[in-house]
């Protein structure tokens, strides 16, 4: 078994109701029950591992044919797959996790992946309502530390792109709230803005004010974009996950075991053709 679709799949129910997309045979589970459900699925099927798709992720039709290197397929570690935000167009590390049945036996929650393979499993929505969008935007920036100039710019984009998407303004407001020093807990941050639910036409101006506020407080490069500019800039984003995702994967392989050196080498070779930093 080396393709992701070779494993049984469980999808976590989110606010969305659409069930199309990849992994058509997936079992569904409520978020609170997904780990137990995955454990049961492993027992019922006898499969060596289970794919757990995060809530709000719509798997692509190609998700099932993501190839997992043979050296990775048999190790006792969770492997993550990113998804692409429908709102910002940027890649998020959360998407799906391939969890060995052995780990599921004792897991209380979905294990944090040891590796995140730079192959996107699909789209992350999570913007069906303003509050949901706000919370998910907040999660993408809260606690993130940008150690390089490039990462700082990308973090800024995470709190700038997406005004044209459904509830995009709310997502960006959440992302901005997550960037503030001494950021409020997400629910308190939401309460600060929820009065705008009754004045949606004020959102663009409000976003300008919040962007300015975050820029002044943090010096982060965040911008209130017009819907047209956001759409155009998002269309410029590459189809591949960013270089740091490839680099993190290669590093994780090298740190894990010399048995994965050949995997690290293959991915470095591939990434170096695309991302100059990897050469």
């Amino acid at each position, binding site marked *: 078994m080396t393709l992701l679709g070779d494993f049984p799949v469980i999808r976590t129910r989110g606010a969305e109701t659409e069930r199309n997309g990849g992994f058509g045979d997936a079992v569904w589970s409520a978020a609170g029950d997904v780990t137990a459900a995955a454990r049961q699925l492993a027992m019922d099927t006898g499969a060596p591992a289970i794919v757990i798709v995060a809530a709000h992720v719509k798997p692509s039709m190609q998700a099932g044919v993501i190839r997992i290197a043979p050296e990775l397929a048999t190790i006792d570690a969770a492997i993550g797959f990113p998804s692409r935000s429908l709102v910002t167009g940027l890649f998020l590390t959360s998407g799906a996790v391939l969890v060995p049945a052995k780990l599921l036996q004792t897991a209380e929650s979905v294990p944090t992946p040891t590796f995140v393979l730079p192959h996107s499993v699909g789209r992350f929505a999570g913007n069906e309502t303003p509050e949901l969008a706000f919370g998910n935007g907040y999660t993408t920036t809260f606690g993130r530390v940008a150690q390089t100039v490039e990462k700082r710019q990308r973090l800024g984009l995470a709190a700038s792109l997406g005004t044209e998407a459904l509830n995009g303004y709310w997502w960006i407001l959440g992302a901005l709230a997550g960037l503030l020093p001494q950021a409020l807990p997400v629910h308190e941050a939401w309460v600060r803005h929820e009065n705008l639910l009754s004045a949606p036409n004020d959102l663009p101006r409000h976003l300008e004010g919040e962007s300015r506020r975050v820029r002044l407080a943090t010096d982060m*490069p965040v911008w209130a974009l017009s819907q047209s*500019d956001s759409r155009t800039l998002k269309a*410029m984003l590459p189809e591949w996950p960013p270089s740091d995702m490839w680099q993190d994967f290669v590093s994780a392989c090298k740190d894990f075991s010399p048995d994965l050196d050949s995997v690290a080498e293959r991915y470095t070779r591939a990434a170096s053709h695309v991302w*100059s930093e990897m050469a």
Partner: protein
Amino acid sequence: MRRPRSEKLSSVPLSDFPVVFISYDEPWADRIWEKLQEARPDAKRVHGIKGLNACHVAAAEEAGAEWFLTVDADTVLCDSASDVTIPDAYLQPMFRLDWPSRNAVNGIVSGNGSLKLWPRKLVMDMRSHERAPDNRVSLDADVGAIRPGRSRLVPMPGCHSVSDPSRTPFHAFRAGFRETSFLSWLVRRLSGREARNVDDLAQIIAIWCSLGTHAPHGKWMIYGARLGLWAEYAWKNWDIRTTHDYDWIAMFWKRHVLPRIGTGGERCSLSDTHWDADRLGEEITALGRVLENVSDIPMADVGAGVSATMVDGQIFPATRHPAAIDALGRAFQKGSGSPINIPIATELFEVAALLEYPSSITNLARLHQLELAEDPDPDFAESLFRQAMALGCAYAPHHLATLLRQNSEAASTDEIARLVDLSAERGFAPVETTA
């Protein structure tokens, strides 16, 4: 040649090759030349040679060697260039090796301003740009046209240089104008089967037309880019080959572009050009609005802050399609332009397969199917074919059908027929359907 995968390929340092700096009319060229000489005291230079074909021939003569590296006048080598090595197997007389360059203004990593390692013979045989036959439009070196089926451009990993063609308003304008003219000409000539390439090119054009407002003459580059697109779409009797005519571009700049923008408070100290920055901004926006009506290419009018964020975030990968890597793999597999080298072909197919290029996944499978791989594995081949098929490859179903016919007693006639039909639907229906 079947070489064990574990055997490391021998390679040559890039620094072993003579390097030639090519400049024409860039007022900053001497400064960049001095910088190159610090890194490469043995570097040579050709300057002021008119014609892009002619200056490369001059560079070959100046280098006086079988292979030589060219560096353009707006390109600065990164420190990493001194560590670059080239596998011996890539040094084929029909190959030009390219390392993309990062554009300092818009962040694109592309062949524009790239480092190029040329075989001398290929340059001497080249008939490009001003030396192209009258009936052929030649906009770049046309490496593939020198010896069709054998000569090729080889995409090399890594980016070891930065290009800044915008050190004066005129040069910034010229760079943008030429590049989008060329790219949009390419877009309008690609067939329906190359839809993905069209999308990629359109994306690059959008970047040239939108990003760079944070750079000193970035707006001039954007203006030139938008005008280059406008020329291709809207100018009657526009001959794309005019973009090679630097005299024409200089005349156009002096007689039409600068007067339209007008003089004002902005000044470039290097060229002593004065211009009205507000008027330039208005023209850029107006041109963008007009272009929306004639092209499908969206463009953004963003301020310096947004522009800097997009560019400094280094979010743009090399504008390199995995198809080029796959094609190189095929060249090594078939021995076209190079001796057959299956380990290198395998490596290249693996690279493009990891970049999710369906044809390469099929080609990897074919190596196993044809027992050319180091440890041929029909089961692995089947898995690869199924993956490629799911990703839309036209060839994979057909080859999978052949594999199943040969190796699987369990495969049904119906399944095999369905696979053959699927390939045909996708445009691949070879006359011979048996292995």
